[in-house]
């Protein structure tokens, strides 16, 4: 999982700037005939941040973005920009610009004319428009392509033009619709960082829609995970990966091993969970505040935090016997599929730190174990 960007940096260093709300989405619902695309969503977006709406198809993320742009009108609820109610404004009166999924560059206009299009609508003087277009071309390093038509550009160059066009009017809010959707995989990781760098240099607030979790985690400071029209969780990439609040979120982001079990001991400082899949109980370093009737709980642990060893762990909790069922060698790391006595197969990522080390192989008896704070107890 790639959490290696300015977002990560900011989380590590701690974002000390006071957070000022720019966009407020207040209980917005959108229905198409009888289907509910967006279901009573409320969220706030802070000034200067890159915010990602992440979800599968049909999750309502694109509809929410289109409502911000003004192409769809909410069935219920209001949208505020800088404290101003923009719910009923048409798209051409909103200080919001969008970079479209397939870029939607005007095919009959040159690169420079594409960038100038929005400025011309504002009745700017010719000299001002020229200066601004020049500035934008420089920003995205496309100055020498000013006279080309869109079909003469490569995918990455088109994306830069699209970005320049949507930034030319200095919008208060920039919307990105699947920004890497039209690029091949290799170009994506390069453009992701380039895009973030330009956006941060300009300092514009940005909302992006994506179905690619790696993209969201690389680019965004905060992510909202959407599912069936509602928001499952909002948080920084690290929050969402390390402390998912529901089964849905932790299954959606990355790989995870889930153990269903019953809470057998629930104290203020710790709790014990008995899972039929595991030989030993699970120790959780905090109370889980179960109800008296329902003691069932799910324990989630990421594969890279589940460790494989050939020696029996000495601790009392958090381990189980197993046999190596399968090994997938992926170069940087290997994925061990370990079958537990109950028949359940768990995954463990083992970094290939040595070129040739002695390690368990197929059908070996092994133990899986983990630290007390490696997993998350999930109530839902």
């Amino acid at each position, binding site marked *: 999982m790639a959490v290696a960007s300015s977002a990560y940096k900011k989380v590590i260093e701690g974002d000390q700037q006071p957070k000022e709300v720019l966009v407020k989405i207040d209980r917005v619902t959108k229905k198409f005939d009888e289907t509910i695309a967006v279901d009573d969503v409320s969220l706030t977006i802070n000034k200067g941040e890159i915010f990602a709406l992440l979800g599968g198809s049909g999750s309502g993320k694109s509809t929410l973005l289109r409502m911000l742009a003004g192409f769809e009108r909410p069935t219920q609820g209001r949208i505020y920009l800088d404290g101003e109610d923009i719910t009923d404004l048409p798209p051409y009166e909103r200080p*919001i610009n969008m970079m*479209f999924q397939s870029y939607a560059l005007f095919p009959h206009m040159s690169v420079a004319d594409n960038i100038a299009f929005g400025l011309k609508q504002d009745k700017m003087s010719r000299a001002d428009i020229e200066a601004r277009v020049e500035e934008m071309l420089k920003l995205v390093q496309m100055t020498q392509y000013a006279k080309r038509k869109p079909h003469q550009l490569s995918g990455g160059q088109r994306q830069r033009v699209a970005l320049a066009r949507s930034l030319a009017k200095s919008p208060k809010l920039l919307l990105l619709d699947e920004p890497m959707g039209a690029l091949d995989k290799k170009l994506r990781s390069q453009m992701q960082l380039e895009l973030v760098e330009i956006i941060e240099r300009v300092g514009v607030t940005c909302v992006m829609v994506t179905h690619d979790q790696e993209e969201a985690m690389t680019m965004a400071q905060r992510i909202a995970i959407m599912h069936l029209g509602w928001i499952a969780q909002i948080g920084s990439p690290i929050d969402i990966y390390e402390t998912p609040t529901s089964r849905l979120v932790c299954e959606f982001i990355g790989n995870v091993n889930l153990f269903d079990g019953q809470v057998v001991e629930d104290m203020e400082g710790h709790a014990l969970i008995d899972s039929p899949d595991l030989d030993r109980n699970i120790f959780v370093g905090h109370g889980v505040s179960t109800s008296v009737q329902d003691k069932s709980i799910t324990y989630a642990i990421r594969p890279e935090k589940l460790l494989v060893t050939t020696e029996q762990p000495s601790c009392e909790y958090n381990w189980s016997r197993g046999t190596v069922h399968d090994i997938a060698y992926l170069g940087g790391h290997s994925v061990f599929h370990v079958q537990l006595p109950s028949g359940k197969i768990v995954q463990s990522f083992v970094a290939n730190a040595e070129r040739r080390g002695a390690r368990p192989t197929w059908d070996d008896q092994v133990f899986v174990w983990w630290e007390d704070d490696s997993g998350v107890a999930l109530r839902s």
Partner: protein
Amino acid sequence: MNISRSISRRMPSGRHFVIGVPFIWLFLFFLLPFIIVLKISFAEADVAIPPYTEIYNWAEQQLSIVLNLSNYIFLSEDDLYLAAYLGSIKMAFISTALCVLIGYPMAYAIARADKEMQMVFLLLIMMPTWTAILIRVYAWMGILSSNGLLNSLLLSIGVIDSPIRILNTNLAVYIGIVYSYLPFMVLPLYANLVKHDQSLLEAASDLGSSNFNSFWKITVPLSKNGIIAGCMLVFIPAVGEFVIPELLGGPETLMIGKVLWQEFFNNRDWPVASALAVVMLAVLIIPIILFNRSQAKEMEGRA
């Protein structure tokens, strides 16, 4: 081995056959008749069957070809022919402009309609062309005549006191040409407009352009090739139109198709009529080249 290969190379392959068919078609039904017309245009009228002289002569082991340019000179001397050419071009030009004005909104509306409705509308546009043009023009005579449907209607609702004369005027010819050729304007425009990417209009709107402005700045320029194709499909045949001006037009309607007919059948002067036809083709070659160029561009854009 080598011989059989060289033979098979010389044998016409399936590819040659596929390309050959349209070539033979064009040769037989376009080039050959045109050469005959060109030949006649250099001949002299004669009281004979066929009513013209041969341009070549084989006598005393000498082949002599006499190109008689007097037909062309005659055309340039009589103002009637120039007036007929200009009249035809003016008629075709105004009709084409009217077709654009009427056809563009129609094509636009069809292209924006529901997918199922589009087929219905297109069928409605094409259906009249399944009836012979002559019958449809005769129907217009019934509508436009002094005691026809249109005058009766206008009289009954009290817009006019006495029947107005529409039939046998240029107005009737305009109505006839626009009516007959409108489908040829709507269809290429529809084919162009229906391919337009809606996200371009959204992008324009997002950048602050009103819907009216987006139409002129995005939709119209992008449909340029459709407009050119439609205009040529209307303009080129309209210049040479004979049936409509003959049946709906009056004495003031001067079009080259009518003059051509009179030269062929009333005056039986085939050489002058042929010269008229050759000049008309020369006049039309310019728009035909324009048309081909825009078609080629359209194909390029698609690929």
